[in-house]
C-alpha cells in the first residue's frame, strides 16, 4: 500500500503491545490499512479486538509499538508533540462516545473551540450552514448540561467538522444513545460524507450503522480479518456470523 494522495490515512505494519512479559497484551498484530478520501469507513469487531486501539493510533493519540502511520502524507509516528498537535488542528477531527464537551462553554463556543484554539475564524457562511445542517440553530446559547445526549453529540459532530479536517474519527459515536437518536446521528454523519466529502472512520457494533459505510473493516484479535464494500445490514450480519466473531 502506498501513500497515494487519494488515501488520507495510510498505516503499515502496525502492532501495539501493552505491558511487558507475562501480562503483556498484543492489542494489534500487524495491521495495514488505507483510508481513502471522501469515504465513510466502518470498523467492526468483537469487544477487545483492538478497534479503539487502532483508532487511537491512526489519529496519533497513541503510538504503535511498530509500524508507521501517514496522515495527509505526513509520517506521524515520528513527530514531536507540538508538530503532532499542529497536524491534529489541520487534519483530524474527533467524535467521542461520551461527547467530551466543555461544560462551561455554550454550544456555539464548543463548536468553535478548535478554531479558537488555532486562532482562526470559520469561513463566511460555513458556521451557519454547519449549524443548520446538524439542527442546532436554536440551541446555540445552551450549555452542554442543558442539552440532551443526541443534541450534545450533534454539537460534537459540528465541532469535529468545523475546521474541515482531512479525516474525522468516531469511536462508537452512538454507543451512548438510544436507537432513534442513533439513527439521526448516523444519518448526519453519512450526510457529511455525502455533502462535504468528509473522510470519516467510525467504530461501531451496529450492523445498521456499518451498512451506511462505503467500506467495512472487520477486526478480530488485533488483525483485519475481512473487508466488505458498501453492504446491506444482512450481508454484514452474515459476514460476522461466518467469521464467528460475535
Amino acid at each position, binding site marked *: 500500500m502506498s501513500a497515494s494522495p487519494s488515501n488520507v490515512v495510510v498505516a503499515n505494519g502496525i502492532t501495539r503491545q501493552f505491558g511487558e512479559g507475562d501480562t503483556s497484551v498484543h492489542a494489534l498484530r500487524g495491521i495495514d490499512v488505507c483510508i481513502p478520501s471522501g469515504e465513510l469507513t466502518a470498523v467492526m469487531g468483537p469487544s477487545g479486538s483492538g478497534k479503539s486501539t487502532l483508532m*487511537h493510533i491512526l489519529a496519533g*493519540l*497513541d503510538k504503535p509499538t511498530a509500524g508507521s502511520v501517514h496522515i495527509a502524507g505526513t509520517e506521524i509516528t515520528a513527530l514531536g*508533540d507540538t508538530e503532532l*498537535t*499542529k497536524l491534529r488542528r489541520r487534519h483530524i477531527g*474527533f467524535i*467521542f462516545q461520551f461527547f*467530551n464537551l466543555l461544560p462551561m*462553554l455554550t454550544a456555539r463556543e464548543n463548536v468553535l473551540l478548535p478554531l479558537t484554539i488555532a486562532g482562526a475564524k470559520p469561513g463566511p457562511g460555513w458556521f451557519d450552514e454547519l449549524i443548520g445542517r446538524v439542527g442546532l440553530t436554536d440551541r446555540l446559547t445552551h450549555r452542554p448540561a442543558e442539552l440532551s445526549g443526541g443534541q450534545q453529540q450533534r454539537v460534537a459532530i459540528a465541532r469535529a467538522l468545523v475546521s474541515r479536517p482531512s479525516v474525522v474519527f468516531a469511536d462508537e459515536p452512538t454507543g451512548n444513545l438510544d436507537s432513534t437518536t442513533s439513527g439521526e446521528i448516523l444519518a448526519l454523519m453519512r450526510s457529511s460524507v455525502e455533502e462535504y466529502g468528509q473522510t470519516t472512520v467510525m467504530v461501531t457494533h451496529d450492523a445498521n450503522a456499518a451498512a451506511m459505510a462505503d467500506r467495512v473493516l472487520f477486526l478480530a484479535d488485533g488483525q483485519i480479518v475481512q473487508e466488505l464494500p458498501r453492504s446491506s445490514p444482512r450481508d454484514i450480519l452474515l459476514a460476522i456470523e461466518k467469521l464467528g466473531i460475535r
Partner: protein
Amino acid sequence: MIRFAIRALIQRKLRTVLTALSIVLGVAMVSGTYVLTDSIGTAFDSIFGQTYKNTDAAITGKSAISNNQSDTTTPATFNQNLLAQVQALPEVGAAIGSVSAEAQLIGSNGKAIVFGGAPNLGFSVDPDHPDFDSLNLVDGSWPVAREVVIDRATADKKGLEVGQMIGVQARGPVQRLRISGLVTFGAVSTIGGATLAGFRLSTAQDLFDKQGKLDQIRIAAKSGISQSQLISAVQKVLPAGTQVRTGQEQAVEDASGTSSFISFLQTFLLVFGGVALFVGSFVIANSLSITIAQRTREFATLRTLGATRRQVLGSVILEALVMGVLASVAGLLLGLALAKGLFRLFDAVGFTLPNSGLIFKPRTIVVALLVGILVTVVASLRPARRATRVPPIAAVREGVVLPPGRLARFRAGGAVLLAAAGFSSLLFGLFNHGLGTSSVLILMLVGALAVFVGVALFASRLVRPMASAANPLARWSVVLFSVLVWPLFSLPFWLLRRGAWGPGSRGSRVGGFILGAALNPVLLIMVLIMVSRRAATGWRPEWPAEFPSVAPDRSATDIGGENSRRDPQRTASTAAALMIGLALVTLVATLAAAIIKPFEDAVDQIFTADYAITAQNNFSPIPPSVAAAAASTVGLESIASVRGGDGKAFGKTIQVTAVDPQAAEVLTLRWQDGAQAVLGQLDSDGAIVAKSYAKSHRLVRGSPISVLTPSGSTIQLKIAGIFDPPSGGSPFGQVTISSATFDRNYAAPQNLFTFAKLRGGVNDANTQSLEASLKAFPNAKVATRAQFKSNQISGIKSVLNILYVLLALSVVVSLFGIVNTLVLTVFERTRELGMMRAIGMTRRQTRRMIRHESVIIALIGAALGIALGLILAGLLIARVDFMSFALPTSQLITFAVVAVLVGIFAAIFPARRAARLNPLEALQYE
C-alpha cells in the same frame, strides 16, 4: 481565552471562592497594614507639624550622647536666662520658653488615669503667645498658677469638668490643681490615648523639678528676617549644651521616635501578612493540583482539538491570574475594612490612634495587588505544568496516569536537599558572627522558607506512617470532643428537632423541646428558623435523625483513615499549610518560655528584698521622691533604688545604672571579683561591671574607666567589683555606679526599680503600711517578688498574645485549605460516595468518615509543625545567651487540641455536602 478562564472559574464557583479565600486574607492583611500605618503616620505628621506651625527656630538642650537608647534619660535642660538673651536679639520677633515632662493625672478615686499604656504628657503653655500653641481652648480659660488645662477626650471619658480639682503627679507627690479649661490638639481630640496636662510655666517648672530651667525655646522671626538669618543670629548667643534647629527640623526630630515606631509596626504586621500569603500559596497550589487532576478529561479533549501544551499551560495560568486579580481586589477592600475595624478596636480598648481619615495610597493598591497576583500565579506554576502533561489520549481512556515529570524522581531527594540547604542557611546566619543584621535576617528568612517548602515536599513520604499513627488519636480525640459537646449541642439539637417534628407522644416531645431550649437557647433560635423555613418553602430538614451517640464508629473511621492515605501528596500538601502556622506558634511559645524561665531564675537569685516598687505600668521610670516616701515606712529595714540613664564608654553608648548604698541588703549578686559589700561602698568613683563587659574591655579590679554623661561631664571611675549575672540578666546596665555620683551628673534622675526590706518580711500589715506611705504617688505600685516576676513577664505575655492572634490568621488560612481539599475530594468521589450510601452507609457514617480524614490531616500538620517549631526554636535559643530551652508543655498541648478542632471544624461543611448526596443521583453523576 480569557473568557474561557473566567467561565471555567464561574463553573466551579464554590471551589474558586474557597481557593481564592486563602489569598484574600493575606492580601487583606497587607493592605490593611498599609492603610493603618499610613493613616497613623499622616495623623502624627500633622500633629508634629502643627506643634511648630509658627515656629521659625527652636532651641533645645543638646545631649552629649548622640543616640539615646533608653527613655530614662530626660533631655538636657538649660538655664532660663537664655530666653531673655534671645528675646533681646534684633532678628527675633517673639520667643517663648517651655518645659515638658511626664505628668500623671489622678482621678477623684485616687487612681491614675491611664489609657492602655499611652503616655501622660505634661507641658507648659503660654497664653500670651497663642500663635506658638497648637492647642485649642474649647472650654474654660487658660491656666493661672495652680491650675491645669486637660484634653477634652480625657475629660469626656472620666466625666471631668472645668472648675473641678484634679490630682497631678510629676516629680513630687500628688498636687491638687483646679481644671481651668479643656483643650484639643489641633483637629484631633486625642493622640493615641495620651493624656494632656498644660500648666503655667512656673507651675510646670515646680511640678517637673525644673526651677529656673527650660527644655525648649520657640522663636518666631521678625518680619523680613529669613530663617537662616535668624538661626545664625541665635547661634551667636547659644551657650554650650544647647542647639538650634528650624521649626520643620525640630518637628521631624520630635516625630522620629514615632516614625520609627510606625515603620516598625508596618514591617511587623507585613511579616504576618507575608506568612498568611505563604500559607495561602500552599493552599492555592494544592487546590489547583486537585482541580487539575479532576479536569484531566477536559484538558485532554482540548489537546485532541489541537491545543498545544503551551496553550494548556497558558490557560491554567490565566485562570490563576484571573483568580489572583479577583482575590487581590477583594483582599484590598477587605484590608480597608480591616484597618477601619482596627481603629475601632484600639479605640474600644482606650488606645485611641490618631486618625484624620483612612489614607489609601497608590502604593497600597500596587503592592497589595502585585503581591496577591504574584503569589497566586507562582503557586499555579507547578499545577499548570502538571496539566501540560495530560496526554490527548486521556480524553478517551479512563484512569490514564500522568507521565511523571522529568524531575519527579528527584523529588524526595530534592526536598531533603532543599530542607538541608534551608537549615544550613539558618545555621550560617545564626552562628557566623560578624554578619550584619540585615544579612542575618535574610539568611534566616530564606532558610526558613526553604525548610518549610522542603519539609512540605518531603511530607508525602511521611503521610502513610503518620496517618496510621494518628488514626487512634484522631478517633479518640473526636470521641472526647463529641462527649464534651453532647449535652450542650448534640442532645438539645436532637430534642428540639424531635419536639418540632415528632415522633413520640405530645408530652415527651414538649418536655424534650423545653429541655433542649434550656440547654442551648441558641439552637432554639436555629430550629425555629428551620421550622419557619420549612413552612415557607419546600425545604426538607434532615429529619428523622438518629439519636446522637458518641460511641466511635469503627467502620466509618477506618474508611476515613484509608482515604487519608490514598493520595499522600494531597494529604501532605494540605497538612503542610497547617504545619507552617503551627511551626510559627510553637516557635514563639518556645522562645517566650526560653526567655521567661531564665528571667524568673534571675529574679529568684538577685531579688532578696521583700518588696519592689515600680510604676503602675511596670516599666516607666519613677521619680526618686517615691523611694524617699517609701523610706519613711514603719518597720523598714533597708531600701535601695536602681537608677538608669545613658552614658558613653570606650566610644560606645551604654546604659549606666546606679544603686543606693543599701543595695547590698536587697540585691544579691554572684561575684567574680569583689563581694556583696562592694554594692554599699561605691562612693564617688566606684563602679561595678558584669563579667562579660569586663572581659571584652580587659577590666580588672582597680582598672580606671571614664563615662561621658548626656550633660557633657565625664565621670572618672575605678572598677570596684566584677559580678557574674545569671543568664536571665540583671537589673544593671553595663556600668553601675553609686546614686550619689549619678545624681551629681544626671539631670532629673529617675529610678527604674526600688527594692525594700521590712521587718517581718512579706505580710499583709507590711504591704499595707508600704502602700500607705506611697499614697501620694498613685503612679507607684508595690509588688512582692512573685508579683514582680509576673508583672515583668506580663509584657512578654501580651506580646505573645498579639503574636498568637496574628499567627491565627495563617491557621485560619490553612483551615480553609483543609475545607477546600475535602470539598474537592467529596466532589471527586461523588460516585464512590453514592455507591457506599447505596450499599448501606448512613449519613452519620458518611460525615464521620470525612471528619476522621480531616482530623488526621490536621494531626499530621500539627505533628510536623510542632516538631519543626521546636527545632527552629532550639537553634535560635542555642544562639542567644539569655535564653535557655524550656518545653512549653501546656501550650504545645493547647496547639494540638486547636489542631484537632481545626480538623473538626474544617470537616463540617464538606461532611454535610457528602452526607446530603442522594445515592441515586450520585451514581448517575457523570
